[in-house]
């Protein structure tokens, strides 16, 4: 149990401040804190707890409960310590007869309108109201009802005569994860402030005044579920009583221990406390010292962990001769020897390079490292790839070419220092919600926002934020738009010449400047092509270039195009042009999709490079691994995922070990993926569930969840965070153990006993990880690579004194139209994305109550296009491309432009990827998910393909248990 950490979660009352030191005396102790700090926080720093109810250190002070009153020498009255800033020489007394009396009076008032059912209350043992009643010594409530009247209150359902109490409001349990019980509310405002300040959704408010004040979600007839609430959990965390309470706590009771770990959903990589009763998970609470999330969470990480104990989880290994057969449950030994024999047999018949692996961007670094090691050291080839192929591989190539490393340049804290934010091809409020909350906080503080996206995403306009510019470009024209922005900056002389001269190759800049200044790159010349009004584009360019610290955040709307890599280079050019590299508040920030997609790339999952992004052609790198692993490393690049499938159809690639990915659902052109999988003789799926890919598998190895193993994830800011085992693997083995068993069944002699040993091997072979070990992670909590002798504490900001490659390199970015074009048969452009409540292929989130927010994929279509086709909101429509067709229901909305339709890919019965094509990025083969020419027509049922698919899937999932 040595990995268990007891977090120090003392609430300091008000947020930390930065400023010149101020010294004061509190209860006789000398305290020095930064200017602007509250007296309450200063006291907490000295270990003195001032009673409080409405204050919390993640919210600005509010000063409403009056419980934190203190005496300050030379000041009149009893100021609230939360709203009073420290001053030099101040002398504070937190305890005196006077304040004690006041506090007791305050508590007496609170308790006079609060039920005294503490023993059976769900917050028993975790209630600040209870704590404070104890802290102030409240022993009696003296308020009595006037004669012949009841004492007005909010908690009794009926009065003593049996009449309904008009002040009582029933519990709202519409949200699947938490309840709102108004009878327990003390109207401290913490939930409302958390919704505003922390989450930035503004779904909660206080309705009424005085005694009638109530917390209210949305409008008068809304419930929590129907309101704008995004179920991030910030209000529940803020609530000092049982008013807002997790249903799991109501059901199970309070946890008895807590372990810090890392969320296994998106690339933000939030730190959480897994709160446990024995080996039962009671709740996940965001960890306030987590450097990626700073105590915040979203509905997925906070609540959607139920998949870990879902009945669909497969816990026993299974095999079958042919995919037409039902599955047969077998022992681990039998499954592993079956798999090993088949894989080795394939190599004997079809050659060493006829098998390969797909590493998981959801598993840990240590697990990924072992999977690529399996192919390189045991299979003897470089046939390894990962889901980053289909998301951020262009980032690796594009940033590598311009800056010399694929690394995103900043940490998430950097957003607090930015003045102008460009969000391009990303929808953070859905895809990276906790980062979005941090971004929105900065926007509310005055930073400007430029959104470049075909859709009017929520960031364009929502509560208290509005983009200064939204450039709704036509899908596929990113390069033209970003190059036009550069055109404006260069031709209007807005570039940072000093930065360019000092930090970049000046000759290359000259060539680039000449290229970009050509009138054919002007916004006016491109308006017809991109659909972006030239004046808007010019205004956006000026805002970015002249607005102070400029930061660019981008997602898969940039990379998943035939010119994905070129757009990444164009973005890097833009950052260099404006001098926005190498300090806080600026930079090029790829928002990575999955929890460990950064780590899976770092760990050598790509077929052309060994861990640490070093090409397999380099003999000195191969020698290093030969030394470590005792085998020769193949000097030729291996097959990428699309190439594996092509080779499979061609008959030269026959066996695949696929860990924690569902390529049949997530990869483009489903029919081609299915054909590739069907052509293989040994597909080993290692996963939690019988996913879609498993329909074509011969071996199923059950996987473990992030709660069941030790390891590390690396998030989008290169932060290496610990994942900690809080329960035993339900399937018997952690995933790294399963890979080791398979390797050993194939003749390897691996003897790892803990992931820490794998990390030692990673550090020994990978320069950017050289300084990383579990002891360091225990000590620091997390660290951002590069972490080595030169950067012992890690590297929050890249390229501070110079680019990794030396001089930054400007690259000419000519727009090349994709071959995927609209025409009479397919006149609309389909683009795809994510929704907040669901994650990727939905294998996890579909198996949680998150389905109440999104139970099916919907097609967004502009009213104009809908009307032309006679479609109404909610109609079933057939969506067809040259690749395939499916049906789903339509949502008519002007969030999309005319000519553009949009859907998500979370549900296999819709299977949006049967529509997408095999076109891909020129440099990396990253599929062009974001542009598919389609036609839409009314429909009254599933397509033939959907019916065939469903029939095949149901047949492929039959299981004969071992006993039969």
């Amino acid at each position, binding site marked *: 149990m040595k990995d268990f950490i007891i977090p120090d979660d003392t609430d300091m009352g008000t947020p930390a401040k930065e400023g010149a030191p101020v010294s004061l005396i509190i209860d006789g102790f000398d305290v020095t804190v930064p200017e602007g700090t509250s007296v309450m926080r200063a006291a907490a720093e000295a270990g003195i707890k001032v009673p409080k109810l409405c204050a919390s250190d993640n919210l600005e002070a509010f000063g409403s409960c009056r419980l934190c009153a203190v005496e300050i020498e030379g000041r009149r009255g009893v100021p609230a310590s939360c709203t009073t800033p420290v001053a030099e020489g101040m002398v504070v007394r937190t305890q005196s007869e006077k304040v004690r009396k006041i506090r007791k009076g305050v508590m007496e008032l609170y308790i006079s309108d609060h039920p005294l059912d503490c023993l059976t209350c769900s917050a028993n043992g975790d209630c600040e109201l209870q704590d404070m009643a104890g802290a102030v010594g409240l022993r009696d409530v003296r308020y009595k009802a006037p004669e012949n009247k009841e004492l007005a209150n909010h908690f009794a359902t009926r009065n003593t005569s049996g009449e309904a109490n008009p002040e009582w409001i029933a519990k709202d349990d519409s949200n699947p994860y938490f309840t709102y019980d108004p009878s327990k509310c003390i109207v401290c405002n913490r939930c409302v402030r958390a919704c505003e300040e922390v989450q930035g959704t503004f779904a909660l408010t206080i309705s009424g005044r005085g005694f009638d004040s109530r917390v209210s979600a949305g409008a008068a007839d809304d419930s929590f579920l129907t309101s704008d609430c995004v179920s991030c959990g910030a209000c529940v965390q803020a609530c000092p009583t049982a008013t807002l309470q997790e249903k799991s706590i109501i059901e199970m009771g309070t946890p008895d221990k807590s372990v810090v770990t890392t969320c296994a959903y998106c690339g933000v990589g939030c730190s959480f406390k897994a709160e446990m009763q024995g080996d039962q998970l009671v709740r996940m609470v965001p960890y306030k010292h987590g450097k990626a999330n700073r105590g915040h969470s979203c509905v997925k990480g906070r609540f959607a962990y139920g998949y870990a104990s879902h009945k669909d989880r497969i816990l026993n290994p299974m095999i079958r001769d042919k995919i037409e057969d039902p599955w047969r449950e077998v022992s681990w030994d039998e499954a592993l020897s079956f798999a090993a024999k088949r894989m080795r047999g394939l190599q004997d018949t079809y050659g060493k390079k006829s098998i390969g692996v797909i590493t998981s961007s959801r598993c840990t670094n240590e697990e990924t490292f072992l999977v690529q090691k399996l192919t390189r050291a045991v299979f003897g080839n470089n046939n390894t790839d990962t889901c980053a192929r289909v998301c951020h591989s262009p980032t690796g190539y594009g940033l590598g070419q311009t800056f010399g490393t694929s690394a995103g340049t900043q940490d998430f804290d950097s957003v607090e220092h930015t003045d102008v934010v460009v969000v391009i091809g990303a929808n953070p409020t859905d895809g990276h919600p906790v980062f979005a909350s941090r971004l929105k906080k900065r926007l509310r503080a005055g930073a400007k926002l430029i959104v470049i996206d075909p859709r009017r995403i929520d960031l364009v306009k929502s509560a208290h934020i509005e983009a200064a510019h939204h450039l709704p470009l036509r899908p596929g024209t990113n390069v033209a738009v970003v190059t036009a922005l550069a055109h404006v900056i260069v031709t209007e002389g807005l570039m940072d010449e000093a930065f360019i001269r000092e930090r970049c190759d000046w000759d290359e800049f000259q060539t680039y400047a000449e290229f970009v200044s050509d009138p054919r790159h002007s916004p006016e010349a491109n308006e017809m092509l991109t659909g972006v009004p030239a004046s808007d584009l010019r205004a956006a360019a000026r805002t970015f270039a002249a607005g102070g610290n400029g930061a660019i955040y981008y997602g898969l709307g940039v990379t998943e195009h*035939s010119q994905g890599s070129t757009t990444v280079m164009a973005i890097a050019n833009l950052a260099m042009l404006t001098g926005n590299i190498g300090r806080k508040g600026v930079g090029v920030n790829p928002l990575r999709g999955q929890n460990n997609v950064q780590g899976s790339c770092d760990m050598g999952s790509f077929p052309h490079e060994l861990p640490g992004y070093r090409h397999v052609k380099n003999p000195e790198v191969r020698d290093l691994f030969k030394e470590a692993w005792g085998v020769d490393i193949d000097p030729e*690049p291996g097959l990428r995922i699309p190439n594996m499938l092509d*080779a499979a159809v061609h008959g030269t690639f026959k066996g695949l070990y696929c860990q924690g990915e569902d390529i049949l659902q997530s990869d483009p052109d489903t029919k081609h993926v299915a054909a590739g999988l069907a052509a293989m003789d040994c597909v080993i799926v290692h996963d939690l569930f019988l996913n879609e890919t498993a329909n074509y598998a011969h071996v199923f190895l059950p996987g473990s969840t992030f709660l069941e193993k030790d390891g590390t994830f690396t998030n989008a800011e290169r932060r290496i965070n610990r994942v900690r085992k809080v329960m035993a693997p339900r399937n018997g083995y952690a995933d790294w153990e399963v890979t080791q068993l398979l390797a050993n069944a194939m003749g390897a002699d691996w003897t790892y006993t803990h992931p820490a040993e794998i990390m030692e091997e990673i550090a020994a072979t990978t320069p950017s990880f050289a300084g990383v070990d579990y002891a360091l992670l225990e000590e620091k909590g997390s660290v951002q690579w590069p972490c080595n002798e030169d950067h012992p504490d890690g590297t929050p900001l890249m390229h501070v004194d110079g680019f990794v490659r030396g001089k930054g390199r400007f690259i000419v970015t000519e727009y090349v139209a994709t071959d995927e074009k609209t025409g009479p048969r397919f006149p609309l452009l389909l683009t795809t994305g994510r929704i907040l409540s669901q994650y990727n292929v939905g294998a996890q989130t579909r198996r949680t109550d998150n389905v109440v927010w999104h139970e099916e994929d919907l097609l967004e279509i502009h009213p104009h296009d809908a009307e032309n086709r006679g479609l109404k909101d909610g109609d079933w429509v057939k969506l067809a491309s040259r690749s395939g067709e499916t049906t789903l229901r339509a949502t008519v909305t002007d969030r999309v432009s005319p000519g553009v339709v949009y859907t998500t890919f979370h549900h296999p019965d819709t299977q949006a990827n049967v529509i997408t094509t095999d076109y891909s990025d020129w*440099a990396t083969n990253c599929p062009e998910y974001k542009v598919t020419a389609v036609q839409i027509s009314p429909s009254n049922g599933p397509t033939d393909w959907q019916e065939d698919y469903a029939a095949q899937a149901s047949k492929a999932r039959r299981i004969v248990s071992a006993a039969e």
Partner: protein
Amino acid sequence: MAPDKMIRMGNQIAAFFRTQPGIDPAVKTLEHITDFWEPRMRQQLRDYVADGGAGLDPEVIAATKMMA
């Protein structure tokens, strides 16, 4: 891999390097293909060029002919 896919992928690479100043696009295309295409894919390309290379851009054909 289907020939039309190989042709498109090859031509896409050449299309990028054609736009780059001061380099030989065929040489850069060759380097890119050598770095990222698995030997089976390169062999398929070689075979296709040996058969005439219909549909391939000149830079791709030149690159393929330079392959060791």
